[in-house]
């Protein structure tokens, strides 16, 4: 991470504000950091994550681009080639798809294609997931596309601290990072100490201890898992909750250690299940912890359907009950 030249602050902050603070502090610390995207300048972004940054740093460093996602990311590639550190905002998950070719064929591969001569320190910020009543194309969870593309880091915060710390670490990374922002947590609040909230990419963290089983999750599903763990007490289950924070690289060491110690695991995410990141997690946990498992690693995920209309989305999103149903299936009779 770049040297912080700004005053650290401690205050109650929403995740949106924490992301804004991370951008501001990183822009102050490193003049090569440039933001670009649709409506990021004058408007401050449709979620206001870039609020005030054009005013502070000027339109050149917080650029309202034409409306073309491949063009935005492709332009960012060129900027990075000339030594800038671009941070791209995609307005919503589904609107990042037009940039897929630039992402897969260039952003992810450039370092490899050039034997390390050309690094692309680009951060692509993508608000993702449902739970905010968005109409179609506004609630996709597209992490599996990115996580299965070698060359990308895939990071997703679930707390206010991590939103700040991980975004700064992502911008400072010399590799491209897909930074997935759980949009339904934008308005979640906590105390943020910017001096303390530093976090390198790649470490999972145990958010809750528990001896019966572990819920492995990330991003938007963390609060749901914590709620489920609380509710599980009534059933006599003491559930640990593990927050991955980074899907790539994956913290095999921490995950395996926790799973081995409890012997039962449920993976929870709201993205569709088939071919989702949960499949990878379940598969690799099983490969590494097979003889410690009392039951198969189960998955609680969104259904294998296009994201539903707002009034039906609660049926699709994994909730406390669905998680507890899965926990109940963990063959407690053994």
């Amino acid at each position, binding site marked *: 991470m770049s040297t912080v030249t700004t005053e650290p602050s401690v205050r109650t902050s929403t995740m949106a504000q924490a992301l804004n603070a991370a951008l501001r502090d990183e822009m102050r610390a490193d003049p090569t950091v440039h933001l670009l995207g649709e409506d990021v300048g004058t408007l401050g972004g*449709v979620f206001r994550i870039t609020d005030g940054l054009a005013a502070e740093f000027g339109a050149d460093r917080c650029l309202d681009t034409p*409306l073309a996602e491949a063009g935005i990311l492709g332009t960012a590639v060129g900027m990075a080639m000339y030594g800038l550190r671009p941070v791209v905002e995609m307005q919503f998950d589904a609107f990042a798809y037009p940039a897929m070719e630039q992402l897969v064929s260039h952003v992810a591969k450039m370092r490899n294609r050039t034997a390390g001569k050309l690094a692309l320190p680009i951060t692509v910020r993508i608000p993702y997931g449902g739970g905010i*009543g968005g109409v179609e194309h506004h609630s996709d969870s597209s992490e599996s596309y990115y996580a299965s593309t070698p060359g990308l880091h895939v990071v997703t915060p679930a707390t206010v601290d991590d939103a700040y710390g991980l975004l700064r670490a992502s911008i400072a990374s010399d590799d491209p990072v897909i930074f997935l922002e759980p949009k339904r947590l934008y308005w979640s609040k906590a105390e943020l100490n910017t001096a303390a909230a530093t976090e390198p990419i790649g470490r999972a963290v145990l958010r809750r201890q528990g001896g019966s089983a572990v819920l492995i999750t990330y991003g938007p599903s963390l609060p749901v898992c914590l709620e489920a763990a609380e509710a599980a007490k009534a059933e006599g289950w003491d559930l640990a909750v593990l927050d991955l924070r980074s899907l790539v690289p994956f913290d095999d060491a921490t995950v395996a250690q926790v799973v081995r110690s409890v012997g039962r695991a449920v993976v929870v995410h709201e993205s569709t299940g088939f071919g989702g990141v949960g499949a990878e997690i379940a598969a690799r946990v099983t490969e590494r912890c097979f003889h410690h498992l009392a039951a198969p690693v189960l998955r609680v995920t969104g*259904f294998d359907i296009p994201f539903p209309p707002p009034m039906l989305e609660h049926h699709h999103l994994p909730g406390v009950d669905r998680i507890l149903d899965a926990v109940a299936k963990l063959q407690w009779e053994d």
Partner: protein
Amino acid sequence: MTVLDHRPTAPVPPWLPGATDPRTDPAPLLPDHTPVRVLGTPELAKHDPELLRDLYRRLVIGRRYNQQATTLTKQGRLAVYPSSTGQEACEVAAATVLRPQDWLFPSYRDTLAVVGRGVDPLAALTLLRGSAHTGYDPVATRTAPLCTPLATQAPHAVGLAHAARLRGEDVIALAMLGDGGTSEGDFHEALNFAAVLNAPVVFLVQNNGYAISVPLTKQSAAPSLAHKAVGYGLPGRLVDGNDVVAVHEVLSEAFDRARNGGGPTLVEALTYRLDAHTNADDATRYRVSAEVEAWREHDPVTLMERHLREAGVLDDALVARAAEQAEALAATMRAEFHAEPQLDPHSLFQHVYAEPTPQLREQADQLAAELAAEAGA
């Protein structure tokens, strides 16, 4: 001989004369400097008074529709509404020019055009209400679903027009999009395919000066968006988008050209959205009220009323009739949206595939069990 009539002839070497002469077209490629206008010009007199009165009536109803839909968002009856207030002339002209057999490819902002061509208002607003995705049958209504991913509907319009032409059927596709949408790759690819296939498709770009907060000056450096037609060998037309008669005229010409095998046209209509981008947007962040007020002076509804009255085509009685019809529509909308929507959780699994996969059947069973347990608890 196929309808495409592709002759992959050898490219003429460029040192031979004639090889690179620009296309000479009955419809000149470059748009005029000034947008086409009819209201306030002697041209108005050439138009059928019945058509003019119908356009006026539709404008009044359209404005009321926009207002009522906006009110519904405030009452929580619609999840979101991207209003076309200020842009009704384009919406109405589009709806009016479409024949029953033609297809409309609307963007999210074009519910008014959808309703205008005959789709039930409730059905047209279903997506924005949030109870289902598309509320109407696209095939029966010949109206594609409201399209959110920008410009992605444009190649669909081309493909449909092309397919209809291959089948020898007289069908025209009208794709509607905004100024911001012209920056997307799909816009470019659609125009190029349309031109190469000579498909009977018309592109109507409503240039309302903004893509959410981004003004046109940051979107394009072109003399006009209509000039974009040149790079595809297509005719481009610039029209005052608040002059419903002018938009109707320019679209009609484009439709005639398409119908007669003349291929696609790109129309840029200069207009302005008087409301925010959607009810969720705060337009004061990016534009000054003086600008909005200036455009209000050129409001498509009052403009039309003034000029038709001047021309003696409209009188108080007709104005009152239109207002009544508008109120009737608003009342219907209020009533329909007052009722709670029918929601069926099982519908989640019903139309993912023609036949649900074994996986989806399992998941549907899971949800059914959950709902049963909830109901039991």
